[in-house]
């Protein structure tokens, strides 16, 4: 591993416009990737993990310029590739190869494996047929297939074998960077292990820099030197693999690690369950994008909240922020269980609390007063008043300040206000 990074990505953005009407006026944009920075050194594997829709694949396609990035700089071996012309781009693409999730879809069924693997060689100017064939045969051997497979067709191979062929095709032009987008997600576990081992081997052999994109943290742990965790288009933490797994610094990383089911029945029920779905990248939350689901969201300093209570109150508040509560469900649920007619306002308010997991009485008396008022207003049909009351009192610093990716005490970067420096900066700003 040399010191100088091979690939440096700075402020990479990829936004997709949302258009409407016949004139296709832009009415909004999906911020698939919204400013990410990272670097990959020769011989190093950087993993990118995150849930679907977090932008991890878009990072891959836009840094290779398979899609034009909206903004940002990508420098490869010291040169900025974002303003490359056609010729330079072709040269760059010989050095940066990609493999995809579905090995079946990545081959032309009518071309032999040999032709498919040789295609990049042809494109990049090796005209001697026999020589191409020899290179391909050699490479098929290296990825664990037989050189005789060169004349067979893709359908004759299993999924795992096809992924080996895809790897051979990527390696055939002797690249410096390999971008692998979910390369083992379509494979069975027993096959996965083989392919991951192979990828580790070829990386060592070719001294490849690798960008490994996966939603599976287990897989990432096997192959990556460092891991970047993405949430809604942003990197929230980037750390050496083992450290990330043993001492995650960002609450999202903790939640993600906590929700992987472990193959140990004695530890069942230990998983952290995040509430809700990932918000839309077209309209990401203000401040820290994770604050709408974060179990560790910071409570306001004026009240004394239990963390779990605070999360529940935030859920209720976010819900009220969107639209008036659906009281009919609470009402029907109530009439069915108790058989009573229309429940009074107090019962309704209690029903709402139950729905959101808010205790019947908050620990902090002041906070309780605010919540009770707001709920009373809501069941009374005075939605705006309820919303304003909650918005005014229960504001978390997390929705006000967007945390930057900063070095934490642990020695690597995370973007969370819980880390001292960030929090101090915020508090100081509030004092001024």
């Amino acid at each position: 591993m040399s010191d100088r990074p091979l690939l440096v990505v700075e402020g990479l953005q990829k936004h997709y416009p949302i258009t409407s009407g016949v004139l296709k006026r832009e009415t909004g944009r999906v911020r698939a990737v919204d400013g990410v920075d990272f670097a990959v050194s020769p011989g190093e594997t950087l993993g990118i993990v995150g849930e679907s829709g977090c932008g991890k694949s878009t990072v891959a396609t836009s840094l290779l310029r398979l899609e034009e990035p909206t903004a940002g700089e990508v420098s490869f071996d010291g040169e900025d590739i974002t303003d490359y012309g056609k010729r330079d781009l072709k040269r760059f693409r010989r050095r940066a190869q990609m493999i995809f999730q579905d090995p079946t879809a990545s081959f032309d069924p009518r071309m032999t494996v040999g032709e498919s693997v040789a295609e990049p060689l042809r494109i990049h100017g090796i005209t001697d047929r026999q020589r191409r064939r020899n290179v391909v045969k050699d490479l098929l051997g290296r990825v664990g297939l037989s050189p005789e497979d060169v004349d067979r067709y893709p359908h004759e191979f299993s999924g795992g074998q096809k992924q080996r062929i895809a790897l051979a095709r990527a390696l055939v032009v002797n690249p410096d960077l390999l971008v692998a987008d979910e390369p083992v997600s379509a494979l069975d576990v027993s096959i996965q292990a083989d392919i991951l081992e192979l990828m580790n081997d070829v990386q060592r052999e070719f001294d490849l820099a690798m960008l490994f994109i996966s939603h599976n943290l287990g897989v990432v742990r096997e192959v990556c030197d460092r891991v970047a965790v993405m949430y809604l288009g942003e990197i929230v933490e980037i750390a050496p693999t083992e450290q990330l797994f043993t001492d995650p610094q960002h609450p999202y990383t903790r939640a993600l690690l906590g929700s992987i089911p472990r193959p140990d029945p004695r530890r069942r029920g230990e998983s952290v369950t995040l509430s809700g779905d990932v918000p839309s990248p077209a309209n990401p939350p203000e401040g820290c994008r994770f604050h709408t689901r974060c179990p560790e969201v910071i409570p306001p300093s004026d009240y004394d909240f239990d963390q779990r209570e605070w999360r529940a109150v935030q859920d209720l508040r976010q819900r009220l922020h969107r639209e008036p509560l659906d009281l009919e469900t609470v009402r029907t649920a109530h009439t069915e269980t108790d058989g009573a007619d229309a429940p009074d306002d107090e019962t309704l308010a209690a029903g709402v609390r139950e729905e959101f997991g808010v205790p019947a009485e908050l620990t902090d008396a002041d906070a309780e007063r605010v919540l009770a008022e707001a709920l009373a207003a809501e069941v009374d049909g005075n939605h705006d008043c309820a919303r304003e009351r909650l918005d005014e009192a229960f504001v978390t610093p997390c929705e006000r300040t967007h945390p930057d990716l900063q070095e934490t005490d642990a020695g690597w970067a995370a973007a969370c206000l819980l880390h001292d420096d960030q929090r101090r900066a915020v508090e100081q700003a509030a004092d001024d």
Partner: protein
Amino acid sequence: MDDRLLAIQDLHTQFRTSDGVVHAVDGIDFDVRRGETVCIVGESGSGKTVTSESITKIIQMPPGAIPEGAIAFRDLETVRELADAFPTAVFDVADDSPADLAAGDDDQFVVVEERDGDEIARGYVDVVRAPPAALRHIRGGDIAHVFQNPQSALDPVYTVGWQIVEAIQLHEDVSKTDARDRAIDLLDRVGIPDAADRFDDHPHEFSGGMKQRVIIAMALASDPDLLIADEPTTALDVTIQAQILDLLKEIQRDLDMAILFITHDLGVVAEIADRVVVMYAGKVMERGDVFDVFETPAHPYTRALLECLPGRGDRMLSIGGSLPSVTDPPEGCRFADRCPHAVDDCVAGDQPPLHAVDGSDQRVSCVYYGEGYDETTVQTGFAAAREGATADGTTRVDGGDPPTSAETRANGRSRSEGDR
């Protein structure tokens, strides 16, 4: 007391294809007890999905067929209802002796084992022999399915609420308003926020996790005794998977419903199962209590499967080789080809019988648990066996398919010199 809800005996499910008959499920036995969660775990091609679809016969027939075996559904209420509806199909086992599942005529699918006066006190419905009309009663009513892809299980042109109402009215004679109330209740039950508001939304307005919740609500519409969930969380993100698993556990606790859960993910199995059935190439390799199977895996395949899981922090060991042919399965144990402990007995005759392990509930189909063998040989671990084999240079017993990575590396280097 017999608390079995579903008893599968010697089930064979085959498919006729142009390449020959595919023996997808090739003689398997297991039970599901009332209120418990049984997980069938296996890789693709193991026959786990075909097993689950054979239970309600939702496989395409032809080309599919169930030439042998019995699937006994032992819910008393169903047995009574079907005995009333199909009086000619009732087969009475006169004495108290345990009935042979193959007994009776081919169209006698309601087997009565015991009567209390006129009432049926014990019996079962053999799904394999049941006619379509009886199957319709069972499907969705007593046994409900949840599939992997929530996208394709919902009709995009109807509202979510209407689809649940339809499911309710299919099995119960209720008015539209009552059905609507029940549907809202169900949506609320499975954790859809603002159920009454979401009732009139279309499937595309729901996220993947929410759609899976809707599917679960639909499955619960008829209050089934058995829920068959085929990879219900595989298409979802881990954080959403955790939510759905929590939901299933909660529902099971509240409704005392049995769940047959099909998955390839051992992590999910550890999270949710009471008992586990490990399948490989159409056969049961091992079954038993979840703690036994994870803590003292008996079959070399189970061990290998646990050791090849990525991200445990330990070294990941690949199994090597590939699945045997499904049209022409090899003699002996299906896993022998990839097993480091395989001996001559493993590649002759049939799949070994399910031997008991230490008098527990755990059963394993491996010759090492039979007479004349030392079972501790296969319990020392796959890792040790593998290390020994490769360290001294001998090849391990496998299909010879892809070579080990060490070989790949060595070959690659020596061959590469000329070209590069």
